[in-house]
């Protein structure tokens, strides 16, 4: 928390921006409905949900990658998205962040319709995409600065935040190295810095801990935890079940493009571990000893 405060990126301070984003909706509500209780109810509802997905579809060829998926991510939650390979996690997150056009369905980020109001929605969201290239011929410092300037920030603000982020992510020594020469874990960290630099209200992280060493992973977890406790929302997709169980407060299990279970960690796991519950939901676990020829002794 204290480390986060240093950054000066407190999401709570952004209530103004939130209200501006909502004002359109509020005006609409008050025009059609004069009862004050309904108005505050609608506002509450919108304010509590950071990301809302309704009836999302995406087809690739003859495969339904995302198949009528609906999901609500409460504001200020640390939300885990788990699912087997090819479940549609990355596809869903790409559509939620305005990188992939859905075939059908609506996605709102803090009340802003993502696909009607792309630019406004993108300002609210920080993205760490899995498997996307970075502009890796820039140095780490240049890359984060570039991301900041693209979001239209002041040069001095960008410089301060880049310094803070490189320090927080233990990348000070590597700030002057070309990103193409980074290790996989360092690349993840610099991509995370790019996602954070414009102080988004929602962080969408696709596999953020893949190939990150344990110490850096713990540091990143601290940063994310601080961000959440200051009012931000984090959505991570991951394969590491115990990590999600320990780190997140909410989780959704996705398989074949649908949500199988969603809610707080305790609701979803219901007494057993998240991993057992996951295997139970998704299925496909074999209890076999492997083929004859693979028994070496």
């Amino acid at each position: 928390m204290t480390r986060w405060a240093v950054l000066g990126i407190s999401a709570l301070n952004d209530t103004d921006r939130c209200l501006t984003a909502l004002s359109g909706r509020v005006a609409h509500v008050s025009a059609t409905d004069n009862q004050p209780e309904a108005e505050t109810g609608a506002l509450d509802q919108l304010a509590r949900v950071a990301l809302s997905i309704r009836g999302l579809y995406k087809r690739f060829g003859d495969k339904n990658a995302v198949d009528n998926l609906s999901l609500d991510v409460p504001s200020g939650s640390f939300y885990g998205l788990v699912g087997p390979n090819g479940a549609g996690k990355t596809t869903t997150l790409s559509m939620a962040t305005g990188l992939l056009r859905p075939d059908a369905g609506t996605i709102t980020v803090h009340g802003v319709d993502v696909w009607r109001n792309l630019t406004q929605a993108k300002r609210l969201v920080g993205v760490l995409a899995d498997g996307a290239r970075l502009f890796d011929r820039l140095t780490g410092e240049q890359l984060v600065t570039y991301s900041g300037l693209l979001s239209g920030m002041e040069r001095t603000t960008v410089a301060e935040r880049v310094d803070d982020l490189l320090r927080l992510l233990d990348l000070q020594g590597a700030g002057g190295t070309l990103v193409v020469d980074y290790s996989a874990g360092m690349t993840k960290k610099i991509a995370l810095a790019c996602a954070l630099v414009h102080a988004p209200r929602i962080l969408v992280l696709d596999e953020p801990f893949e190939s990150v060493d344990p110490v850096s992973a713990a540091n990143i977890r601290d940063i994310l935890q601080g961000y959440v406790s200051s009012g931000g929302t984090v959505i991570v997709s991951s394969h590491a079940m115990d990590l999600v169980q320990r780190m997140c407060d909410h989780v959704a299990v996705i398989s074949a493009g649908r949500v199988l279970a969603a809610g707080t960690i305790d609701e979803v796991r219901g007494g057993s571990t998240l991993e057992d519950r996951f295997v139970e939901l998704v299925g496909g676990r074999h209890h076999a000893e492997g083929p004859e020829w693979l028994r070496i002794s």
Partner: protein
Amino acid sequence: MVANLLKLRLLVLKNFLLRSTWQLVAVIFGAFYGLSALFGASFGLVALSGAPVEIARTVVVLAGSALVLGWLVVPLLFTGIEQTLDPARLVTFPIPLNTLLIGLALSGLVGVPGFVTMFGAMATAGTWWQHPLIAVLAAVCGALAATTCIVGSRAVTTLSSTIASGRRFREAAGVLLMVPLVLLGPIIISISSGLRTATDALPSLANSLAWTPLGALWAVPSDVAVGQWGVAALHLLIGIATLALLVLIWRRTLALALITPAHTVSRSRGRGKLGFLALFPATPAGAVAARSLTYWTRDPRYARQLIAVPLIPALMFFYSRNGMLEVLALVGPLVALILSLAIFSDLSYEGTAFATQISSGIRGRDDRLGRAAALASFGLPIVILFSVGSVWISGLWSALPGLLGVSIGVFLTGLGVSSVSSALVVIPVPAPGDNPFKAAPGAGFTAALTTFATWGALGVLALPEIILAAVGASTGVALLGWIGLVVGLGLGSLFLVVGIRVGGARLDRAAPELLERLARQR
């Protein structure tokens, strides 16, 4: 195992082609082109049977030597001949070295260049169809020579990749190889103009080439035809020894390559150095311009597009020495054309890195503006410099205003046109870090199609200033040239602004679809 390797090669090719219809079309065109070249060569070789032995010998030895030389040199320039069976990917499998060697050599035959070379070389038998024994000998020698081509190119590829396994070296080597390529044009011109005057020297050139590894095998059939059995045996020996030596080199370097994985050496460049990012204004468009300019200096795939810039003045200067001073005037407009269209593959080079930019919510117009500004920051001075320089040499100062109008007009209009076209088309390009000359299959055709469409649009849009300058220069009315300058500047700026707006609007509308196509290209 050899059959498995071949099957793998074909399977990869098939799956690759099925991913994109355009690449399939492009490869079909390539195959059609190769086959017509093969048929043409075969007819020519059969027709040679009617000519005196001396002429047949000269033609076959010279063409054959050039073919072998091409196979040895081209892989240094274009690493993309056939990378599906990259030894680095096969390193984890327990394949005996000799099996791997044979498999890789045979897979070199599967593909348009290998196929055409092998059958074209064996078609040298056609020249000797009246003498069956010599014909059989020619076919055997042809097959050996074709094998030399394939093995030689493999040896060169493996050798260079063993020496140059670091990224930096690979990229630097790619750029360094541009230097001889730039000089290639003038060299070819001087050689061919020399040849025209000295056709008599060709037979003796062929005779000396016959004693080198390049031409030895090709000379054997004609040696026999004129009854010089001893010379024939010696030539055959040279050819076989060359092949054996190349196999040996290849085998050694392949063995070495298998235990030396690619590695990178990183070099730090001091913190706090923002480079161009500190120089350009701190706006989204400024950031894009700074990033773009950094890539122009750091990514050799961008630099590769600039090869033609020094080449054009060199070529034009060469032609102008024959007394045609007027062609020098083409330097400025041609350089403007090449430079301004260089950004049309920008997005393709970036690939999915473009996602970072999309997710920042930047306006398409700012993106287009930034890229155009980056190119113009060094392109416009070059264009003006070359235009003035060409007039300085030719001395036709009265034509300068019109010429500047055309050059600047073409440059600005070209920036506008490619701002639109690069938001529409994704062309296959080598991945970041690859050799910049590597050709993605199908790239040639798609790129050529887009280039021609863009050139066509540019030609029409820049017509006013071109006509004004041309009429002004031919009639000698200086005023027309000045009007051309004003029209060129005005229309060019107008088209640039329109291009940035239209291209930007297109990006705002269809960025996700563009990103999807970029991701598929990987």
